[in-house]
């Protein structure tokens, strides 16, 4: 290392400076030269809410240029409306379009806005449903839903603990593999759900699919690092490796349930849950298997009951928060991010379990591994059909 520190600093900064100069050149002197093609404006309607005698649409400028929103319509019929804070929307800026309208519950509506060049953008709603009033009742209701889909099923799943504990080594491996199957399914499920949100609620400018991929990988890497740290610490503490794995699973499932809670809360708030009872029954059944996933790695160690309850809460309680946040202010972006974090976390947990199994069993039985993973996937599929 002969080069001095200033030289090192310059070599680090120089490319950045050059890049800034290039961007300044492209945006400044070269901008007219680079103007080819037609720049098309784009406006996305992100959210439509039905309140008393009024329809409210949240619109966002998702195009490359600033726009003015100059007209609103309901079912392609021009309606006078208010727009707050004002008609001009810079890139990414949002505004609230408030259309006084005596709407009918359960009827489909299409809400449109027209910008100053005469282009109209619209979004349809399958059935108008009164927006929920943010009050204590709704808070309790959403909390109850989160509790029912998150905490209760996981606690029920944890009750399998004494049964799994009595099993022989091969059967135990089967159950660990079963857990892997459950988790792989859950991870894929989360990615699909995130893609659906990206498709239905997120404008294309966010590159939803790429955002999912980015967050899944980042979350996987982050938890991989945290997991490594955790196993390091375990060497010095009395914590068992089984407990560490269970904790990792619980955290991963916790993120997943946060995303799921956001989605369910939003579905309730947007009135998209026509068969909410069925949906909740489905989620509850589905999530019982999550309890099993947490319980399985614990069986080789002496786990105290309160620790298990603690793990169950780590995994389940985020669903309650998810329901609250999703129900009171739905953000498709955050829901997508949390679902993707959950997916990444879950894939990392699958890897941890696999490594744990390889360490603990001298000869890893292929039969119990394959049988377990397959059974896990099938059980998850079957419980998902109920939703």
């Amino acid at each position, binding site marked *: 290392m002969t080069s001095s520190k200033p030289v090192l600093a310059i070599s680090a900064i120089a490319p950045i400076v050059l890049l800034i100069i290039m961007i300044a050149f492209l945006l400044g002197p070269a901008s007219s030269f680079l103007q080819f093609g037609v720049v098309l404006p784009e406006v996305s309607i992100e959210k439509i809410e039905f309140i008393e005698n009024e329809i409210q649409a949240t619109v*966002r400028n998702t195009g490359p240029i600033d726009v*003015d*929103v*100059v*007209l*609103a319509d309901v079912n*392609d*019929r*021009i*309606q*006078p*409306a*208010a*727009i*707050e*804070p*004002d*008609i001009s929307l*810079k890139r*990414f*800026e*949002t*505004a*609230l*379009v*408030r259309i*006084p309208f005596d709407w009918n519950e359960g009827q489909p509506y299409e809400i449109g806005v*027209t910008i*100053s*060049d*005469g*282009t*109209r953008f619209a979004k349809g709603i399958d059935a108008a449903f009164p927006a929920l009033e943010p009050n204590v009742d709704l808070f309790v209701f959403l909390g109850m839903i989160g509790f029912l889909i998150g905490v209760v099923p996981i606690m029920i799943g944890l009750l399998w603990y004494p049964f799994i504990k009595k099993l022989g080594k091969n059967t135990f491996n089967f159950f660990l593999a079963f857990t892997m199957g459950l988790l792989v399914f859950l991870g894929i499920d989360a990615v699909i759900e995130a893609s659906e949100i990206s498709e239905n609620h997120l404008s294309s400018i*966010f590159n939803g699919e790429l955002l999912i991929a980015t*967050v899944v990988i*980042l979350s996987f*890497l*982050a938890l991989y*690092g*945290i997991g*490594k*740290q955790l196993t*390091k610490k375990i060497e010095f503490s009395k914590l068992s490796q089984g407990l560490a794995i269970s904790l990792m699973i619980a955290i991963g499932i916790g993120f997943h349930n946060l995303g799921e809670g956001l989605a369910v809360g939003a579905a309730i708030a947007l009135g998209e849950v026509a068969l909410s009872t069925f949906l909740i029954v489905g989620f509850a059944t589905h999530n019982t298997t999550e309890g099993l996933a947490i319980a399985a790695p614990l069986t080789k160690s002496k786990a105290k009951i309160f620790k298990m309850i603690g793990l169950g809460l780590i995994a389940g309680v985020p669903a309650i928060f998810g329901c609250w946040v999703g129900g009171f202010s739905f*953000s498709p*972006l*955050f829901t997508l*991010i949390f679902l993707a974090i959950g997916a990444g976390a879950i894939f990392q947990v699958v890897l941890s379990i696999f490594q744990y199994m390889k360490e603990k069993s001298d000869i890893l039985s292929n039969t119990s591994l394959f049988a377990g993973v397959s059974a896990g996937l099938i059980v998850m599929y079957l419980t998902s059909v109920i939703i």
Partner: protein
Amino acid sequence: MQSTIQSTKMFYILIGIVAVSSLYFVVPGVIVAEESPRTFLTHTGLVIQTTGDVIDPIGYDGEALDFDPDKFMKEFDYGEVTVLDDGTILREYYITARDDQIMEVSPGVFYNVWTFNDSVPGPTIRATEGDLVRIHFTNEGSKPHSLHFHGIHKAEMDGVFESIGTGGQFTYEFYAEPVGLHLYHCHVHPVEEHINHGLYGAYIVDPKEPREPADEFVFVLNGFDTDFDGENNFYAANTIPFYYQHHPIEINANQNIRAYVVNILEFDAVNNFHLHGTLFHHYPAGTDTVPSGYNDMLTMSQGDRQILEFNYKYPGLYMFHAHNTEFSEKGWVSSFLVKENTGNFDTQVEYDDII
């Protein structure tokens, strides 16, 4: 050990980057201003209170749009008049086509209109039966255009097979016949595009024996497909949506009213006209002296014209609009404000002044 700690730091940095970059998407959505709400009366009569802006097809800033429907409805171009040796009256008109103008077709909505004499619709050409009509046409547009007049004329004056290129000129000449309410428009392919952009106007041939004196108006029923999806975004009588609804046309009770109604709407096969509070006698294409009906509804296909004659018995505010409510709720809704008849007939057309 050192490397593990560093790698952990890296993960925190990564998570930090993710958190900060996600804020980038969210922050512009935060609304800062908190003012006291202002109250607006909208075109449907609804009252809106808001701290923001009102979006409604009424111009709240009070500035006139690029086109004045009040002026257009009573403006007739009689041409430059010369009496020829044989006693024939020659009327010369000058029409220039352009296709580069941007017009505010509804408050806040700017659209590339193609115009005759900088106006959509073009000027209302008016002559008397038997007059020699000479139209000096100049194309200042970037595309070929033409003038196709309905009526009786020679094939080479039909403006269909000879389109006039950029900078080109052409003189159309024909005798004004038959009596009636006709139409002219650009007939260059694709005609739908040239009409949707605004290249059309009304053409009236008065009978030699003048019609009964009346308060006269021209209503060209048109529309604009501003986003090019093959459906009209706006409908109107005389271009500006909702204009006559919040600028009612003042007329007198018990006075003859004559409306020249031309339907040049594209994309929709049928347009219609419904008058409130009274009924009208109507003359299809204005070619007959006997009305073909007494009604308050007219159904008109593309290019159809009707002359309506009516009067109001009672003063008050009366609507006239498309009974197709889609059209009326997208702008084709107007109103007459009928006042007590003061016996002052200023507004009547004085035929003696024309020649």
